[in-house]
């Protein structure tokens, strides 16, 4: 099992429902976010294009945060996602310095926090909060090793890409255009 999130950029309308759902579901403190929406305008008038992306921790397979964590607080779960064990976190923030995606923040209680890919919901057989609330079904979460899954179908598309491929982190979160 390799849990992945594939986001269809062409479906995203930038409503930010994913951001609000995540904050509600995970009780994310005010002013902090586990996911966010980026708008990228490209080109020169009149040949312009706009892409909108819902971004978060990329749950990398070669995660610099896991490598640099001195206590083992940042670790890989059995399904391939990257999680933080709060009991082990010292708040040294080496993981924040190492993350190429700026996906982590310090929770007011002191530990480092980020997207868990709603591991607690996935364990109950539910989808992630952002996936379930997305009105255009731009977000899909599933098992990359299951060829019949929606994510596997999306991963076969030629337009599949990951953020910062030059960082060589092999993200489990990917996008299609």
């Amino acid at each position, binding site marked *: 099992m390799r849990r992945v999130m594939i986001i269809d950029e062409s479906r995203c309308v*930038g409503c*930010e429902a994913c*951001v609000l759902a995540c904050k509600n579901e995970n009780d994310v403190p005010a*002013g*902090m*976010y586990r*996911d*966010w*929406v*980026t*708008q*990228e*305008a*490209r*080109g*020169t008038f009149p040949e312009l294009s706009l892409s909108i992306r819902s971004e978060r921790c990329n749950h990398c397979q070669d995660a*610099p945060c896991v*490598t*640099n*964590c*001195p*206590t*083992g*607080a940042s670790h890989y779960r059995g399904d391939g996602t990257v999680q933080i064990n709060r*009991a*082990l*976190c*010292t*708040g*040294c*923030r*080496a993981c*924040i*310095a*190492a*993350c*190429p*995606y*700026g*996906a982590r*923040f*310090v929770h007011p*209680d*002191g*530990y*480092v926090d980020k997207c868990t890919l709603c591991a607690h919901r996935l364990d109950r057989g539910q989808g992630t909060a952002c996936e379930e609330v997305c009105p255009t079904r731009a977000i899909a979460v599933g098992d990359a090793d299951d060829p019949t899954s929606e994510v596997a179908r999306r991963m076969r598309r030629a337009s599949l890409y990951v*953020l*910062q491929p*030059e*960082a060589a982190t092999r993200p489990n979160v990917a996008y299609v255009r």
Partner: protein
Amino acid sequence: MDPHVEIESTRSLAGALGATNWGWEIPVYLFLGGLVAGLLMAVCVVALVRGRERVTEGMRRGLLATPVLLSLGMGALFVDLTYKLHVWRFYTAFKAAAPMSWGSWILLAVYPVMALLVLAMPPAFLMGAWREGAGTLGRLTRWSEAHLRGLAMAGLAGGAALGVYTGVLLSATGAQPLWSSGALGALFLASGASAGVAALMLVEREHDAKELLSRADIGLIAAELVVVGLWLAALLTQGPAFRAAAGLVLWGEYAPVFVGFVLFGGLLLPAALEVLALKGRAAHSRAVPALVLLGGMLLRVVIVYAGQAVPLFPA
């Protein structure tokens, strides 16, 4: 940034948080760690090469300062932690791939070495009858004196590990172009060694020892300049993010401090004054090592802050 690409993050995490990840505590720790590394290495080299009788009173006082300075540095690290109650977690794990884990254990390992070296080579005001006593301290002192060579080698290795790791800590994070260089380990080692020698020059009173330290410092400054040159040349010959990072310290926001106080005031000027003093054209002034120490501190301030100002992968 490519003029034809405009990125607007409506809910950018970096934008929402705004603050710098690592603040003043980290450069303070990196400086004190490097300084202790330099002091340890300098005193141990003198003990190994020239013998314990050539370890002067000033050097012994410098050695005595190492546990105090390292404790201050570790205090800064503790202040930096956002989950302070979990500080002991550093010592419930060892992760070979994490430089900070190496650093935690290196810090712990050098304390007993420093303590035993101080027992073997104490400054005059700590000499006393207790050294010959039958108590634990007396026995430890006699053991340390008998094993000074081994202790000095351990001190040299511990100092080198401490000095290198402070640079590797930054370069291993990989997400900041200014830090993304193997040269940082060598740079921080050379800078720490130079700071340690400079600190000894501040308290040294014997003329011959001053000359010896001065010669050593000129060599270390020369080595530091070479490594700085390699580090910046590597940045300038890579991609736009690396050039932007180099530009930040060479002609951008941090250039006045880096070029003025680190390169000129902290390296070139003191090296020139030390050469003049060795040729007898100027006196050995305490201002010279003070400039080296100030430059060493500012080097770490610039690298830590400027490093975080230019991300490798802009959001």
